[in-house]
């Protein structure tokens, strides 16, 4: 059972992701961002519920829509915003941008812009853990689009035959860019695909942070005890567009508004208030605290220097003299 403090910490983490994403969009509007971004507003319950359910020593792989994963894993917001703005102080020294924020020290093995490509990397990390006799697990985040990539099936197969300590967590936000999941997945659930491998496949409400937490916790226990992977599909919704160029031509305002009623943050806050774990003023204080953290991180990023163009060739090979 989660304690009150743990539940409040989860709520705060979700608020932090939401605030990060909203600030990221504002920075983009102010023309401070060179590239693109993929915001996870509306999907916060999944990284928070899932990462609270594993140990800090466990590993994750992330996706192009990865800000939430990194924040839930304990990412440094200053380095995240700095990377988003392409600064030398960013996680990747301005080489990666929004799509490639990673912190190997925090055991986030990277965010990839190639849909599905993180899945076999997670499987390889899980294989290494098994070979090294470690008890950590790997949590692979991917989307509904990635569930149609060949490497998803291949990796699920290998993780199963080798009984690897891996959790396959599909964030089904209903659209692969503009393509509705209903059009490209012929069965009601992506988790149905688990039956082809004889492993548990579970579809859950991805707007419910506690459901995510409990499901991932059980999957982590199964993975840690050597029984192999679980495929979890958390159904959610992307409140914002796919990326900066999205004009939402493929879905209706009504649909978006309908999903917003299930907002993972407001619904969870309401539940906590109902059971007396949270007061309105505490919730307001929490939001203020989060905003202050965000403002401080953004200030750091804006004030940070750009990388020196002379260093453009740095980090290509591991044996460069300069590194």
């Amino acid at each position, binding site marked *: 059972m989660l304690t009150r403090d743990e539940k409040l910490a989860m709520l705060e983490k979700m608020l932090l992701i939401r605030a990060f994403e909203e600030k990221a969009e504002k920075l983009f509007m102010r023309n401070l961002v060179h590239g693109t971004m993929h915001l996870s507003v509306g999907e916060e319950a999944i990284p928070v519920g899932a990462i609270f359910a594993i140990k800090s020593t466990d590993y994750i792989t992330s996706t192009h829509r990865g800000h939430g994963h990194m924040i839930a894993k304990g990412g440094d917001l200053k380095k995240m915003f700095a990377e988003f703005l392409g600064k030398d102080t960013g996680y990747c020294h301005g080489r990666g941008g929004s799509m*490639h924020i990673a912190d190997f020290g925090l055991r986030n093995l990277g965010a990839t812009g190639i849909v599905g490509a993180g899945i076999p990397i997670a499987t*390889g990390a899980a294989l290494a*853990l098994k070979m090294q006799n470690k008890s950590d697990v790997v949590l692979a985040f991917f989307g509904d689009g990635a569930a149609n990539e060949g490497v998803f099936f*291949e990796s699920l197969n290998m993780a199963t035959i080798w009984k690897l300590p891996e959790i396959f967590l599909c964030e089904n936000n209903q659209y692969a860019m503009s393509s509705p999941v209903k059009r490209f997945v012929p069965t009601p659930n992506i988790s149905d695909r688990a039956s082809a491998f004889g492993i548990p496949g579970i579809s859950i409400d991805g707007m419910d942070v506690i459901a995510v937490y409990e499901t991932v916790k059980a999957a982590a226990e199964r993975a840690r005890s050597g029984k192999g992977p679980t495929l979890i599909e958390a159904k959610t919704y992307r409140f914002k567009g796919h990326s900066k160029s999205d004009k939402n031509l493929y879905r209706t305002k009504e649909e978006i508004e309908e999903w917003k009623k299930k907002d993972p943050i407001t619904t969870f806050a309401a539940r906590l208030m109902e059971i007396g774990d949270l007061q309105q003023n505490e919730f307001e204080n929490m939001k203020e605290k989060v905003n202050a953290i965000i403002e401080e991180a953004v200030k750091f990023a804006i004030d940070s220097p750009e990388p020196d163009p002379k260093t453009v060739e740095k980090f290509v090979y591991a044996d460069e003299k300069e590194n």
Partner: protein
Amino acid sequence: MREITYKEAIREAMIEKMREDEKVFLMGEDIGVYGGAFGVSMGMLKEFGPWRILETPMSEAAFTGVGVGAAIMGMRPIVEIMFADFLTFSADQLVNQAAKLRYMTGGQVKIPLVIRAPQGSGTGAAAQHSQNVEAWFFNIPGIKIVVPSNPYNAKGLLKSAIEDDNPVLFLEHKLLYNKKGKIPEDDYRVPLGQPHIEKEGDDITIVTTSIMTYRAIEAAKKLEEEGISVEIIDLLTIKPLNTEIIEKSVKKTHRLLVVYEGCLTGGIGGEIIAKIAESNAFLYLDAPMFRLGGKDVPIPYNKNLERAAVPQIEDIIKKVRFIVKGDWYA
């Protein structure tokens, strides 16, 4: 010194590294009891067991990624791709992941991964099992490409590749697997990034890789009888490309021919010649620099057609005579 085959040399390098370092393991298709499609890993299963000689399903795209993931975690995987042609399946993990992860995360990670794959024609396996793929990956920063030509350098280079902290594509040649050569009894390395002067000569420099080194050596014997002295430089590592030795050699011989098995157009020859053209070695040339590459065709099945598709000994001889004769644009 003792004599072993190219195949045995590769096997010995893997066995010795696996005995020495438990982080090293081999994964790929049919590498266990079968010993791999060419028998390179024959017998290794018995010594190392099924987790270190890890047989995979036919899932090159994903198991190449599994190698990347394991390498991130500090293992030193050797991934065997049964035929280099199948690297198209592995391409995303090699090109977009292994090669770029370090750079795009600002140097946070090392990928000590070796991908071994046999390439090349001459076995009658036709278009999808015969291509020389060196040039496919020549344009990808972040990886190294190694092309051994004999048992000595195959063993020494593979050990260096396994010890390297970068992704290394190790391209073996099927026709070389049973070629014999002498290797030292003691442990040794052949360093990556250093071409080797296979044979000294005065009249022309021939730059080669892999099987073409053998053919150039045979051609050179014939040409010497005609009074043409050939210097042969075996690249061994084509990426990163080190042309210092070639520049030095060209300054001595004043002529350059690059012989490679891959398709002529967009092949390694153009890049090597461009580098020499940009260096001061260009000023020493007595003739235009030439390429002798494979024809721009898929590798055909018929024996005579297959031979015609890639440079043979007689083609090298003819090309050298032509360059030395000096009547280039007649």
